[in-house]
């Protein structure tokens, strides 16, 4: 192996040299083949020492350097910069941690620590000798985004993206844009009129030249990768259009839970779901159903938290998040419209989180009465002539059963995911057990999916209020913008590579890659795997998955790791 490696061993002002005999280490290393410079320094990170390294690289024509000092978490970037300044490819620098993982961990045994430091540096030298010049990938991106869904999330995303200079195509499955929120005449908090909000968004969308809205349209096919997708949509007249976009935002929203027939009396003309009740209350159609002196019973958690209203019910195990707030907001509205109507709210846990608590308090003040029913024993709704008898245990009375003679029963229904199997098929986005789209990580990457460039926002990812849906829509827009605004993305070069000679396509690698970075291609008469570098995250799970050992991860190649093991074990570098 030819190569000229320089090794720089740091005293760290005693933090290393007090427990490791650095001079001895230097001696041991200087004899290794390929090592042309071996030196110790008081502080490798100091300006003077950095300059020394640069000088060494230039004077000796080094093609690899090893710095043995503290944890790479502290100075990896420093020394990559040093290499770059000296004209050496930054990836030909190897960092060896002889402080946190050597001198500090073995303070009682100087000989052992010294011996270990030698071994670690030897492995570093082995790796450096086999290192290659790598370049960060640059993926060109198109400054355009496809937004699927024209509800409040989709529309708001589109506007934000457009304001950031990206062109946007919105595809809405329904004929009418606006989604669920448009039907809400009085939204909480603040009592916004959903129609007004959506209409103003729509008129802004219409006014923007770089936004195109297709209604009654559906996505049928997706090709390409992050930064450069080709998406085919079928528009209302049946023809197809192909869009070239850099990213995709899925803002498909939710459906209100549809109770099973008979679930809490559902089907009875005086049993309505919350969205319909709100429409009745605010929709200007009048409320012929109610008059002063009547009683309304609200039943919470219908379709959520596993509350089974009847045998056939298929509730989700999750909490639908928005319903408690919506119900107490409705209570306030009802008290406003019908001050003479009595309201009984049968709830499980009142989840008016954050500032929504104020709404709960207001509903109480307005006279709404709250009874708590046990999750495993939900209320029963029994028709009784014109009225409905709602029988429920009230845990706040020690589980005593009470009976409400109601003139109207409102089922506070939760959110369920929309039927999106077509989209899931096209975009390959994962769906969670609850049926909503799954993000990569709820905290680190809450709007990203494992498919690079495909984002999930709004209530399609999980139940959300309008406000939260918009926040997530904008967060998704921000991610699109950070991907597309510069016109390119730069990626770490540690990606997997396939040795086409060895590969005999079996598909194992494709199975383990969650990012869809591996695909099957035909090459020189056989089927082989190909890595899409732009999609490869460099995790390397495909490496052991390959039965032929045909995959290597740049920077962590088989030869490098084996050489390192040999070097650690005591062999030469």
């Amino acid at each position, binding site marked *: 192996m030819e190569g000229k490696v320089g090794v720089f061993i740091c005293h760290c002002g005693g933090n290393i040299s007090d427990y490791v005999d650095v001079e001895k280490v230097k001696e041991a290393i200087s004899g290794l083949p390929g090592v042309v410079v071996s030196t110790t320094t008081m502080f490798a990170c100091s300006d003077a020492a950095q300059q020394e390294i640069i000088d060494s690289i230039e004077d000796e024509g080094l093609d690899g350097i090893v710095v043995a000092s503290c*944890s*790479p*978490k502290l100075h990896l970037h420093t020394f990559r910069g040093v290499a770059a300044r000296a004209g050496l490819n930054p990836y030909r620098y190897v960092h060896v*941690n002889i*402080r*946190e*993982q*050597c*001198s*500090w*961990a*073995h*303070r*009682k*045994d100087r000989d*052992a*620590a010294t*011996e*270990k430091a030698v*071994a*670690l540096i030897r*492995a570093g030298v082995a790796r450096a000798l086999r290192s290659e010049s790598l370049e960060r990938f640059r993926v060109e991106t198109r400054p355009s985004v496809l937004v699927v869904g024209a509800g409040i999330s989709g529309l708001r995303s589109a506007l934000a993206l457009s304001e950031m200079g990206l062109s946007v195509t919105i595809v809405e499955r329904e004929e009418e844009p606006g989604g669920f929120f448009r039907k809400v005449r009085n939204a909480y908090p603040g009592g916004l009129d959903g129609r007004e909000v959506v209409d103003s968004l729509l008129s802004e969308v219409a006014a923007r030249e770089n936004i195109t809205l297709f209604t009654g349209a559906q996505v049928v096919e997706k090709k390409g990768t992050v930064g450069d997708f080709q998406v085919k949509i079928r528009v209302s007249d049946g023809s197809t259009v192909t869009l070239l976009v850099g990213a995709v935002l899925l803002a498909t929203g939710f459906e209100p839970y549809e109770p099973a027939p008979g679930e809490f009396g559902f089907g009875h003309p005086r049993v309505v779901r919350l969205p319909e009740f709100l429409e009745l209350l605010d929709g200007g159609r009048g409320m012929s159903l109610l008059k002063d002196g009547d009683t309304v019973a609200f039943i919470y958690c219908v379709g959520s938290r596993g509350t089974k209203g009847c045998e056939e019910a298929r509730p989700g195990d999750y909490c639908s998040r928005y319903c408690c707030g919506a119900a107490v907001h409705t209570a306030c509205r009802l008290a406003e419209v019908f001050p003479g109507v009595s309201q009984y709210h049968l709830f499980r846990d009142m989840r008016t989180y954050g500032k929504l608590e104020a709404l709960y308090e207001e509903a109480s003040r307005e006279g709404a009465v709250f009874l708590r029913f046990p999750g495993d024993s939900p209320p029963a709704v029994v028709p009784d002539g014109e009225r409905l008898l709602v029988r429920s245990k009230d845990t706040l009375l020690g589980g005593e059963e009470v009976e409400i003679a109601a003139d109207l029963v409102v089922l506070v229904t939760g959110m369920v995911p929309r039927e999106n199997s077509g989209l899931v098929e096209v975009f390959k986005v994962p769906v969670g057990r609850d049926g909503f789209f799954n993000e*990569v*990580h709820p905290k*680190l990457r809450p709007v990203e999916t*494992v498919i690079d460039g495909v984002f999930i926002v709004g209530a399609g990812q999980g139940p959300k209020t309008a406000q939260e849906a918009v926040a997530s829509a904008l967060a998704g827009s921000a991610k699109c913008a950070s991907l597309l605004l510069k016109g390119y993305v730069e990626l770490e070069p*540690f990606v997997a590579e396939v040795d086409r000679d060895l590969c005999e396509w079996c598909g194992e690698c494709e199975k*383990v890659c*969650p990012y869809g970075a591996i695909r099957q291609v035909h090459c020189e008469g056989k089927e082989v795997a190909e890595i899409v570098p732009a999609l490869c*995250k*460099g*995790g*390397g*799970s*495909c*490496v*052991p998955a390959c039965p032929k*050992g045909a995959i290597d*991860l740049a920077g*962590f190649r*088989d030869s490098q*790791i*084996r050489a*390192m*093991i*040999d070097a*650690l*074990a*005591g*062999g030469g570098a």
Partner: protein
Amino acid sequence: MRGPRILVFSTINISDPGIDLAGASHMEYPASVEVIPLPCSSGIRPSWIIHALKRGFDGVFIAADGGDCAYHPDCTTLTGKVVERAQEMMREEGIDPGRLKMAAICSVCAEAFVSHMKKFSRYLEKAGGRE
């Protein structure tokens, strides 16, 4: 060399900082433990493990990411498969599969790492040197 030699495969983002923290907190563990950091524990080739054991390491420890892995939601399962296959190969080679251990080490799991090392060391000591 003092004590059984252990090769640790750590992960750059998660378990390596945990091992660093052990040193930074001046917790002692055998100096015969040596670490090679990789991006993700699911990318370890079983053959590396066999290679290490054949070249003189007494044991191999995989400090996995567990649920915190940023690369793979199912990192633990994938790494588990690597371990399974490696142990199979070890059995074929006549090596005690107990010489390969895996545990999730998070970025602050300094204590856990040290106790794993001590325990593994004791196990390997009892099992006796190789070759």
